[in-house]
C-alpha cells in the first residue's frame, strides 16, 4: 500500500475511525520508511543481531558505523541471515583503494562479506560507513540478494582507504527474519551503531 495524501480539514470536522485508518495507520505502517531496530554499543560485543524482523515491509535497509578491536588495521564485516551458517552465500565485490581498482568474487561462502571496518591498529576514532539494501526480503519464493556500499579508512597512506560495492546473494528462498553482523576477527567496540529500517 502506498502513501495517501492527507487532506485538509475544516473547523468542526469530526475525526473519524476511517480517517485514522487511512491517513495515520496506513500511511505510517505502509507509506514511509520506519525504524525497526537501532543498536549503539556501550561495550564490546561479538555481534549485532536483529531478530524477529517484521515481515510487513517491502525492503530492508541497514546503516552501519563500525570498528572492531582485532589486532590488525582492518577486519571484514560479515553478515548472515536467519542464522544460516552453511556454505550458502555468494558475493561479487568491486573496490577502489589508492589509485587501484580491484574486484573479487566468492562462492559457497558461509557469510556475506560486506566491506571492512577499522580495527585495533587503525588510526584513533576511525569508524567505517556501510549502507545495505535488501529488497523483497519477506518473499518465500525466491533467493535473496542485497546491494552494499562501504567506506573504510584505517590510515593516511596510499592504500589505507577503501571505497567498495558488494553484491551479496543467499541461496535460500526463505523470508529473512534475522540479520547477524559480526567481524571476521575480534569484537565490535563501544561506539558502534547499526540501524535497521523497514522500507515500504
Amino acid at each position: 500500500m502506498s502513501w495517501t495524501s492527507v487532506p485538509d480539514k475544516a473547523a468542526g470536522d469530526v475525526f473519524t475511525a476511517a480517517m485514522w485508518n487511512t491517513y495515520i495507520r496506513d500511511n505510517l505502517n505502509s507509506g514511509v520508511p520506519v525504524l525497526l531496530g537501532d543498536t549503539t554499543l556501550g561495550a564490546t560485543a561479538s555481534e549485532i543481531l536483529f531478530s524477529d524482523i517484521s515481515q510487513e515491509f517491502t525492503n530492508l535497509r541497514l546503516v552501519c558505523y563500525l570498528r572492531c578491536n582485532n589486532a590488525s588495521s582492518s577486519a571484514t564485516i560479515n553478515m548472515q541471515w536467519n542464522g544460516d551458517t552453511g556454505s550458502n552465500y555468494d558475493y561479487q565485490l568491486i573496490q577502489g583503494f589508492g589509485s587501484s581498482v580491484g574486484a573479487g568474487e566468492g562462492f559457497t561462502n558461509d557469510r556475506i562479506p560486506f566491506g571492512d571496518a577499522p580495527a585495533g591498529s587503525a588510526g584513533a576514532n576511525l569508524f567505517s560507513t556501510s549502507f545495505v539494501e535488501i529488497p523483497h526480503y519477506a518473499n518465500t519464493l525466491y533467493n535473496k540478494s542485497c546491494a552494499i556500499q562501504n567506506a573504510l579508512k584505517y590510515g593516511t597512506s596510499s592504500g589505507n582507504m577503501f571505497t567498495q560495492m558488494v553484491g551479496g546473494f543467499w541461496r535460500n528462498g526463505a523470508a529473512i527474519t534475522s540479520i547477524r553482523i559480526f567481524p571476521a576477527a575480534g569484537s565490535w567496540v563501544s561506539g558502534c551503531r547499526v540501524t535497521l529500517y523497514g522500507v515500504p
Partner: protein
Amino acid sequence: MGYTVVPTRGGGYAPQESDWDTYIKDNLNTGVHVVLGETELSSDAASLDLSSISQSFAHLMLVGFIRCGDIGGSTPFLGMRFNNDSGSNYWYQLLQGNAASPQATWNAAAQTSIRSRPLPGPNSPFATLTCLIPHYTNSANKKSCLIQQAQTLGVTISGVMESSLTGGWWDGTAAINRITLITLTGVNLDAGSRFTLMGLP
C-alpha cells in the same frame, strides 16, 4: 525509540491522548525518515549551506540534483564540509566507472573538503547525488560518509557518463550541525540545483 505499529480503529472512535502520543507524536518524531531541510536555488550561488541541523536523529541522508552555473574554464569538483571547518581535515577515496574504464583516486594529504566528482556545467543535465552520514551526533569519534554521484554531459559520445562512489572522512569528532556544499574552484552552483536533507531515526 522504535516505530510502534499503528492499530486499526473501529466505528465510533474518539481520539485519545495516548493515541496521539504513541502513534503520532513518537512515531513521527522518532520512528520515520523525515525531511530536515530542502533548498532549490533560484539563482546561482557559491555554496549550499544547511545549518542548525537537528541532533535528534541517528543518521543523515542528503539527496542532490546539482550542476555548476559556470564551468569557468576549469573543472569544478564538488566539495563537502562539515561544521564550517575549512581546515585541512578531510580525506576521500573515489571509485568510479567512466566508459569502459574503472578508476580509483585518493588524496595523499588532508584536504579542505571531502572531494567528490567534477560537476556538469550549465549546458549539461544535472548530476544526481546521494550522501549518507552515519551516527552524525556522536562527539567521541571521527565522522565518515558515502557519496554516490551519477552524471552525463548529455551527448552520446563514449566517456561523457560516469558513476562514482566516494568514501569521505572528516578528522573532526564534533557532532555534525552544519553541511556545506561548494565547488573547489569557487564557481557557482547553478540555479535549479536542489538538495534535500533527511533525518533517519
